[in-house]
């Protein structure tokens, strides 16, 4: 868990989430999550029927990868809130980088928490996820 004495508003934490995203990892996420939408795993359906240039990652895979950055920063079991908007699709071959920025340190239900702003971008510096999270900290 983050310690209040060691953080301040404006602090950031950045991590590379994935380099050169493989189709197999998307398949792995489909299997674990149970979302077998062919848009994510079936290149023939996705290009010939749905009209996309290739399969693309589940939004929830991007959110899950971003969540890894987040829990590595705030610690296990510390999150009280985590929400995102999926602003652009994530494609095989993408490299994703994610940053959490501390925007507030405050009291919530008698506990100290931080509010974080989150952004995950691809190799072209285009945001694929924007979001917010709140996590408990040690006072």
């Amino acid at each position, binding site marked *: *868990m983050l310690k209040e004495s060691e953080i301040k508003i404006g602090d950031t934490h950045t991590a590379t*989430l*994935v380099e050169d995203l493989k189709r197999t*990892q998307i398949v*792995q*996420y489909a*299997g*674990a*999550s*149970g*979302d*077998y*939408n*062919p*848009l994510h*795993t*079936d290149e*023939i*359906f996705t290009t*010939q*029927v*749905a*009209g*996309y*240039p290739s399969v693309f990652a*589940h*939004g*929830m*895979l991007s*959110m*899950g*990868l971003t*969540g*890894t950055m*987040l*829990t*590595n920063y705030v610690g*296990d*079991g510390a*999150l*009280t*809130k*985590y*929400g*995102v*908007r*999926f602003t*652009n*699709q994530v*494609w095989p071959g993408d490299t994703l980088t994610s940053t959490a920025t501390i925007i507030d340190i405050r009291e919530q239900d008698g506990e100290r928490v931080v509010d974080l702003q989150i952004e995950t971008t691809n190799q072209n510096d285009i945001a694929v996820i924007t979001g917010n999270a709140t996590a408990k900290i040690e006072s």
Partner: protein
Amino acid sequence: MAIDKFLVEASHIMMFARSVGDANPIYHDEEYAKKTDVGGIIAPPTFAQSSAQFDPNYFLRPKIGGEGWFGSGKEASGAKPSSSSGESGGGGAAMGLHAEQHFEYHLPVKAGDVLSATTKPGNTWEKESKRAGKLKFSESVTEYRNQDGDLVITATGVGVQTERAVDS
């Protein structure tokens, strides 16, 4: 969507964590997890999404028994999916995409928990977009409760139906 029994199992947590590139031992090493503050293997923050595995009617899973599946086989597309359970998760069928997802964590979810979930529709709204034509947004709110009946996670998903495939 209603899910009666969402069994939170350590092996499922391990596989889910692997799929999101998370090597944290709290998700696979029981000996390590026991010595931490949380006291055991816990679920990663987006794990509740895998409740789809426990929804008997989840429309984005091929059904056993030849109900048809819209992914490719001999042809580029098979049968249309049955949309009997369109509220789950907030993903979508052919032209449906996931626009937003929000989780509120009330209590930790641990390996061994047995959750249940109920989903209610939320707001709906429309928007014009240059990249995909008319967008129809719909919200669904899922409450997950544990074996003691306590609320553990509130999940709000926003799905969007687009008029055409999104330009990238």
